[in-house]
């Protein structure tokens, strides 16, 4: 009885979670000029409009490029920090953890403000994408750190010692033993970093330079003045791209994880 009720309740919550997303996807196929409900008919015209809209296409390219850079930089810096944290940090462990997670713990809007002030104070300003990229690296860093740390926690230090007793130097131990064994953690950390960066709004919004609007910013600006279902088409494509990235990575990742 109680279990039945809980199941029904959960299903309602799952519907609640999916509803707004489903509505956006549904609206993208509306053939009408405006977002009307019920929809006026099925059409792909807004997808055509979107594909021919250079502003959106450029925003998508910008977003992908920023996410890729943030992923690589965070991936390297975060993995290094995680290796230090698990293997060498002693008394300072909790401090390092809090510091590494701080971009996640502190309000994004505050981080955005601080970076905005900072890039102006040092004279860089928002004429380049430097501040924007730094912001994306900061925001994605905790995700890499958390994922790599947790995969390192399952790493037995004796593996490194065994390799060392067999004659492996430090770099060889890292390359042949440590890295292959924490690869799933590094992979999923980078994947998280990519997806999070693709979605970051406030930092992009406050630090964007001319012509560096990411997709969420472009969409936000567009929605201020436009009500056509084209925004829904853009959103749907964005959703599909993200899900594809995740699924493909999972498949690639999955193969590697289950090999041993």
């Amino acid at each position, binding site marked *: 009885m109680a279990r039945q009720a809980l199941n029904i309740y959960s299903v309602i919550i799952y519907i609640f979670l999916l509803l707004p997303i489903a509505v956006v996807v549904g609206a993208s196929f509306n053939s009408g000029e405006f977002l009307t409900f019920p929809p006026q008919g099925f059409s792909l015209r807004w997808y055509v409009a979107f594909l021919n809209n250079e502003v959106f296409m450029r925003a998508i390219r910008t977003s992908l490029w920023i996410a890729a850079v943030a992923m690589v930089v965070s991936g390297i810096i975060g993995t290094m920090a995680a290796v230090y944290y698990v293997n060498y940090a002693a008394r300072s462990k909790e401090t390092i953890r809090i510091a590494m997670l701080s971009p996640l713990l502190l309000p994004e809007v505050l981080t955005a403000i601080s970076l905005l002030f900072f890039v102006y104070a040092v004279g860089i300003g928002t004429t380049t994408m430097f501040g924007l990229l730094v912001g994306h690296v900061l925001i994605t860093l905790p995700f890499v750190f958390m994922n790599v740390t947790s995969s390192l926690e399952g790493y037995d230090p004796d593996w490194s010692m*065994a390799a060392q007793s*067999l004659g492996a130097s430090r770099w060889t131990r890292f390359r042949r033993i440590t890295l292959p064994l924490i690869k799933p953690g590094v992979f999923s950390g980078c994947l998280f970093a990519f997806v999070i960066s693709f979605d970051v709004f406030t930092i992009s919004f406050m630090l964007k330079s001319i012509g560096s609007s990411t997709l969420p910013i472009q969409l936000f600006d567009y929605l201020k003045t436009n009500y056509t279902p084209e925004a829904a088409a853009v959103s749907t494509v964005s959703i599909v791209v993200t899900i594809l990235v995740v699924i493909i990575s999972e498949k690639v990742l999955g193969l590697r994880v289950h090999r041993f």
Partner: protein
Amino acid sequence: MTKVTIRNLTKIYGQAIKAVDSISLEIPSGEFVSLLGPSGCGKTTTLKMLAGFESVTSGSIAFDGDDVVAVPPEGRDIGMVFQNYALFPHMTVRGNLAFGLEMRKVPKAEMQRRIDATLDLVQLGPYADRYPRQLSGGQQQRVAIGRALVIEPRILLLDEPLANLDAKLREEMRVFIRDLQRRVGITTVYVTHDQAEAMTMSDRVVVMFGGKIAQQAPPSDIYDYPVSREVAGFVGQVNFIDGFVASVDGDLACIETPFGPAEVPAKTRGRGSAVTLALRPEAIDIVPDTAGHGIPATVVSSYFSGAILDYTLAMADGTKVDVKTIARTRFEPGAQVRLSVDAHRFWPIEAA
């Protein structure tokens, strides 16, 4: 083969915690030595210093006369077997065995030959392409030993390698490792807290307490002629019998005990001085009260454990004595019995 010489080896953690306190030990080439002791006695720290995973506070370690204290683990040419095996989970059995050879840049053909030979040695030929998680505990154990041996190291170090196996497998592996070591003839240091393991496998047992070596001797000597109460108690069950010196005749002293007179090697003590003797439970035999000879005693408890009966008895003065006999007739608690003692099995420990 390699001779290991340890001199005044000391490890101090922090300011003053002496984990290992100036131990000296000579291990002849090809010998199987066990470091035996309770946890925290410094045996594992000693092994880690031999391997190079732990730095040396003072003292020296030499392999064939070459001091290795400053050499990092990867340069010491040791084979180490870890307690939890530490097999590389992302490599097959063959990959695990190949790793050390790759580090030594052994040519491909020779590598294959040596791996195959080692796989035969540890009886894992059919499992060469399995991953560690696909193997049983005993098989993983043999991979770990094979991985350590395939590089033909100067010495073999084993850190409680049987601790994670079940009882039956543990006994099989004791014999397996002992035979293998004999065949390869490699100098071996084996760390354990299990006295039976140390006894059955070693040429020599080094008993450690509190960072110091309490006694080093062949297993039977450790058992029969322990130097202290601690050693006597650690390597098996023991009764401590109080007595006093009745007479001294050259090298032999006659000790008066509740079990009658006992002759033991004389220590420099005069007549009448108090002495504690060690007596193993199996050196005492129980006969029925009707036998008419022997020391009267009452059975307090008796436990059956397969081949052996474990008794606790009370003597006339209330002193408790532990006795092990092979399981024949069983005397029930409360039964009146008589004890007969093999007088040669007394061994003087120290003054009472």
